[in-house]
């Protein structure tokens, strides 16, 4: 009661000293710990970001040097371009085709590996192995499997699907590779989460006669939710940024069917030398990701149990 009133009073009068923790410290100390990170962020993220905004309002020459100020004309051109809308649609499809399947698969794998079997470490290594493979070799492996005439996938399916050259399948193929690449990280992350659930808790409900489904519903699911949230978040952000496997597998094609925003940005800048268009697209991508992230943070408060 008293505490509540104090809190109200401190809020009302904005007396900041009441809200401060008991630990006293030199006022510059916390900033010092932030200096190394912020030097890098300012030089290689914030400055180039602002520079990107600057470039997006100019025309550029083929070497990326700004020429004439055009204001918002580059953005107006972009929003009048059907190819750009296509790129945005593909990006969202791609993100959905990766984030949820890969987290779901990884969660099932984490539950499978969360037992006290002999040789459990071997299974863990097998489940998380794709994480150790870089996108270029993964692309080489999968493109063999996707081969139309003698690839193992078509052979097993009894089909002759042109995985990488048919616009209806190329995005699926790229998504499969990306999901495969991300399973390992998600698995490890969720396994750590499951391991951190106190064994006493699981043992005590087992003694009370809880079956696996009940344990899943009342112990694993609520206690894993912080890790679940973080891992979905990382996957959504990661799939917005996917590039290597798209470049190496399909180069945005066929017929722009895998031309996600990030690939489009790369293409405009380094293939066509239209740096100002690339910068404008990059800013649109930034705004989309910002919205998604804000939504996720709002959502976090509703679903995550931290204690």
């Amino acid at each position, binding site marked *: 009661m008293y505490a509540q009133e104090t809190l109200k009073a401190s809020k009302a009068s904005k007396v900041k000293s009441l809200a401060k923790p008991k630990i006293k410290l030199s006022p510059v100390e916390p900033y010092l710990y932030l200096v*190394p990170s912020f030097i890098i962020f300012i030089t290689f993220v914030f400055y180039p*970001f602002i520079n990107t905004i600057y470039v997006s309002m100019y025309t550029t020459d083929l070497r990326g040097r700004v020429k004439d100020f055009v204001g918002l004309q580059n953005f107006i051109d972009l929003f009048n371009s059907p190819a750009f809308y296509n790129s945005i649609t593909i990006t969202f499809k791609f993100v959905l085709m990766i984030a949820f399947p890969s987290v779901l698969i990884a969660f099932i794998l984490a539950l499978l590996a969360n037992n006290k079997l002999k040789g459990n470490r071997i299974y863990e290594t097998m489940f998380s192995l794709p*994480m150790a493979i870089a996108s*270029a*070799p993964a692309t080489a492996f999968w493109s063999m499997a996707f081969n139309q005439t*003698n690839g193992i996938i078509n052979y097993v399916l009894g089909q002759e699907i042109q995985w990488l050259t048919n616009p209806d399948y190329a995005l699926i193929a790229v998504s499969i590779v990306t999901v495969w690449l991300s399973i390992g990280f998600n698995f490890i992350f969720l396994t750590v989460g499951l391991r951190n659930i106190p064994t006493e808790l699981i043992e005590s409900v087992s003694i009370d006669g809880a079956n696996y489904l009940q344990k899943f519903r009342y112990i694993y699911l609520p206690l894993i939710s912080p890790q679940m949230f973080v891992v979905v978040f990382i996957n959504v952000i990661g799939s917005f*940024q996917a590039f290597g496997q798209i*470049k190496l597998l399909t180069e945005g094609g066929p017929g722009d069917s895998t031309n996600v925003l990030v690939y489009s940005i790369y293409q405009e800048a380094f293939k066509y030398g239209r740096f100002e268009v690339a910068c404008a697209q*990059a800013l649109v991508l930034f705004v989309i990701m910002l919205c998604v992230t804000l939504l996720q943070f709002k959502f976090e408060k509703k679903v995550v149990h931290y204690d």
Partner: protein
Amino acid sequence: MTKQKLTNFTLSITCLIVGLIIMFPVIYATSLSFMDSSEITQYPPKLISSSPTLDNYKEAFETVPLMRFMTNSLVMSVGITVGQIITASLAAFAFVFFEFRFKKILFLMVLSTMMIPGEVTIISNFLTISSWGWNDTLHVLIIPFMTSAMGIFLIRQYYLTVPKELLEAARIDGCTNFKFFIKILLPISTPVIASLSIYSFIGAWNQYLWPLLTINDTANRTVQIGITMLQSESASKAVILAGSIIISIPTIIAFVIGQRLLVEGMTSGAVKG
């Protein structure tokens, strides 16, 4: 008891089959890398070579300087990993254990970097490092990536579970904040550091576009670009697969070791009540 044994057996078999499915692309590619160029294009596709050959591996090493590429990638990946752990732990320490002005804004700034894809800033960054004459060096591959918002975020999530009273108790015992960070906080956060290390190392090894843009000199190329070179200079797909497997071995080894550290970290640093 026998019922328990049966359940365990079924579970083991399930795990094994699922594990083999997950690993299949790697196993399949490894098998194909021992085939000659006629066998690899056969229909129906063969799973195992009837006359295995090492020629593809020999050709991969002869076509491009693979060992040099691997050394470069290793220097880059270790540099980035160590850098990220140091800077991210320090930043997370500040964000969790201190109250200071602009804390929220600074933390939002960190998170905002997570929403700025490397491809947004890569053009501008390329122009910056070119103006400094950093092209064709190894440090250009390391320095821009020496911190990571994701690292700060992950370590922060972990530090949030550490009771603040621990720092207060350490201070009462005459411990400075920095000493608390080094002697107490870092050792108990091995699980998150281990998982971040694996992630950073793989991520760095995985880097593709930045090394492609900044390095022209063959001597400073990384493995990912090396593989691209192999693709343009070798006709046989089996040679590309052989090269792809060679460049994956260091990460697989690092990963198996890293995973062991991760498990140890979890058992020593896990919630002890």
